[in-house]
């Protein structure tokens, strides 16, 4: 997988305010990063730096190995950026506007028609193509912005609050579109406050607060990253209370009983889970289900100590 995004010690200062504080990460083809954090955490500024729209105070951002500022000729056209407030010429029709964007990106003729038709269909705007942008609702404009970002087919896609203003069906549609981008080998960064959405389609999650990156993990590892123990849920048949039997297992602590369901705290990891299960079986406990409890992204987010939740 080729390296598409390299952020090295990016720092952005606005006077005394540090908007982005020495953030570093890399992203490869097919990676889908969810960027979460409270308002004013520096998510948008970071995206703008990667798009080459904001010069970092220090550090460098590279797209496809080229510096976004010093080698912008190689970068422009490879990055699609969708800001949280949809940019558009309101006096143009949706189709006119997308043709203008295609023209800006050197896409003309049949290819432009083909791409615009495809994306209008993908974002459910086929029947709005002849309407002026100013006549559209907030959600519809958001769809236009998504289409605008994707018509040039950039290698790196940066989406800032793409689901704001979208109805539930639109959000589902957007999730499918974003997932398909990753399948096409693009690197996608999505900034959003809708954590459930991110959890569903992201491969990586980054939590940002006050400009600093508190966490950056693969989505499967996020809940257990830096944690030694986790919870296991099991159902044990029979009327007897098995709490004591469970407590007798070396390493088990914090047992919670709800009927036949028990939640126990034990060491993390596949080997540990296998060991725990083996010990349950050896003790002849009637285990009918056994699973490691995965924390939701919201729980992980709150655990990081970020105060403000939007």
């Amino acid at each position, binding site marked *: 997988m080729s*390296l598409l995004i390299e952020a*090295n010690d990016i720092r952005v200062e606005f*006077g005394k305010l540090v908007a982005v504080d020495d953030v*570093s*990460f*890399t992203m490869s083809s097919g990676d889908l990063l969810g960027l979460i954090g409270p308002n004013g955490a520096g998510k948008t500024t970071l995206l703008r730096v990667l*798009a*080459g*729209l*904001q*010069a*970092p*105070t*220090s550090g*460098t951002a590279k797209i496809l190995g080229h510096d976004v*500022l010093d080698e*912008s*000729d190689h970068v*422009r*056209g490879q*990055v*699609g*950026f969708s*800001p949280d*407030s949809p*940019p*558009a*010429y*309101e*006096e*143009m029709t949706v189709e*006119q506007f997308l043709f*203008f*964007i295609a*023209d*800006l*990106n*050197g896409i003309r003729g049949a290819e432009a028609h083909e791409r615009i038709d495809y994306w209008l269909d993908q974002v459910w705007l086929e029947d709005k193509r002849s309407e002026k942008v100013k006549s559209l609702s907030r959600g519809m404009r958001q769809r236009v912005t998504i289409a*605008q970002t994707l018509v*040039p087919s950039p290698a790196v896609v940066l989406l800032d609050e793409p689901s704001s203003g979208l109805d539930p069906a639109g959000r589902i549609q957007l999730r499918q579109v974003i997932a398909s981008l990753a399948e096409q080998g693009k690197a996608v960064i999505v900034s959003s406050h809708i954590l459930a959405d991110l959890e569903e389609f992201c491969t*990586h999650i980054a939590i940002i607060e006050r400009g600093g990156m508190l966490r*950056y*993990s*693969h989505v499967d*590892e996020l809940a257990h*990253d830096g944690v030694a123990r986790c919870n296991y849920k099991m159902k044990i048949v029979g009327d007897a209370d098995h709490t004591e039997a469970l407590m007798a297992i070396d390493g088990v602590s914090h047992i919670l009983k709800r009927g036949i369901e028990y939640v126990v705290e034990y060491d993390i990891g596949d080997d540990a889970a296998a060991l725990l299960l083996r010990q349950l079986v050896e003790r002849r406990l009637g285990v009918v289900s056994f699973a490691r409890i995965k924390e939701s992204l919201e729980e992980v987010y709150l655990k990081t100590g970020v105060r403000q939740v939007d």
Partner: protein
Amino acid sequence: MQYLVLGNPLWSGQLALLGGWRRMFWTLAVYALLLVVACAVALKWAEFRTEREAAIWVLKYLPYIQILVLYAGGLPTRAKAMIRDHTTLMIESIRISPMSAYAVVGGYMFGPVIGTLLSWMIGVVVGWVLITAYNIGGGGDWLAGNGVLLIAVMTAWALQVFLGVGSKKPNGAIIVAYFAFFFLGRVNEALVCAPGTSLFLGLHPAILSLGVMRGVYPAQYSLAIGLFASVVMTLFWFWAAVRRFRRPEASALSPRGAVILCALWALCAGGTYLNLDVLHAGSAIVSQKTRPLMGMLMSTLAMIFAGIPIAASTLTTRVEILQSQNPTGKLKSRSWPSAIAGLLIALTLMWVTTHGNVQSDLTFTSVALVLIASTVACFGAFRRSAIRLGTTVPAWSHLAAYWVLPAIVAAVWLSIELARTTGDKDAHIGLLFFLSPLGALISTWWFPDSYFDIGIVVQFSLAILVLMVGYWVERSFRREREDRIELKSIELAEAPPPAADAYSVPSNNGDDT
């Protein structure tokens, strides 16, 4: 250079925003009809004995309409288009598109004003038809004058794009400046009050084009200088706009570019004064009418032009320091040549302006000198902070203290001395008073006819001192970096060859893959 002229997406985009070709056609048709109706009314005017006289009358005022179309039509239209692109964030979509910066600047320069250019062409055709139909003569002059006007307005348009690509509110100042110069100032006054400035803004040839359209040619050198300056400045502003579009956070002008800009200005100013007639006429105007304006403009412009190269150099250094990927990277720009260049250009400007024109008035010269010195001192101090702290943001409280505090302390001290000695006439205000530019300015008013002014001497001494401090700071910074580079190269030479697997891509994402 792709799409610089033809096929530029910004052209077609702006045309679509203006309502497309159909709406453009009808708008222009209405304009052409209005012009024809106005001509017809004039031709049938009762007081004209012949239609030819009426046509001559029309041709007398048509040049003003042509100027109005290009300036009053073109500037606000482009301002509206650029402000819209800022407010809708479309300028950011354009910035990340693969269009070259040259094409974008070209697009903004001509795209929003397609209608304006076509309206101007309609005016040219109407004038040409009148000239040929009534055998008035001077068709060549009419075309040449319109050509001069078009070249002149390009300077204004390029300057406007330069201001527009970097700022959300770019155009109020330029429009006010142009209208003020155009409507409030006559040619000679504009030349004398702000030598070079009208050339600098491309306004001088625009004014001259009025005469050329009517067959009244100014001195050839004046027209030549005007056109030369206009073409050069158009290219200069265009290039600066390209630079600013690429890197809005960086200085619009490189230190070298800033020095060239100021030198061009001084050259144009000097060129204007080559003609003794203009000089004498200017002196007469200045002495009678516009002396305060002259002093104010001269002081302000001298200060600005002393500051431009130094400010460009300072900002460039800051960006170099802060964005340096390699902590051992070398600094490219140097501060002292820019400061010296700024100082020399400002002093040259002073000499050019005062030489032969306002010898009798030393007050304004003194004021300008004090302002130049304090500008150099301020930028020298900012340069130091750029190198030491990585910032060029002026501390306004420090600036206010530098301007006012020494004068207040000295005045208070003098008052105490006078009270203590019960009005000793030998008591003098101390040097501290002149350390503040305010004090130095006051002293120039106290001794208006003195060739030797203590305030100027103190201010220039202070400026030189600050420049020297800046030079030392910069030298030590450069030496420190050179030492680091040397150390790094020794470390690299002595380091053992890395293991084969040491070349993995650095990542701190916690992902083992």
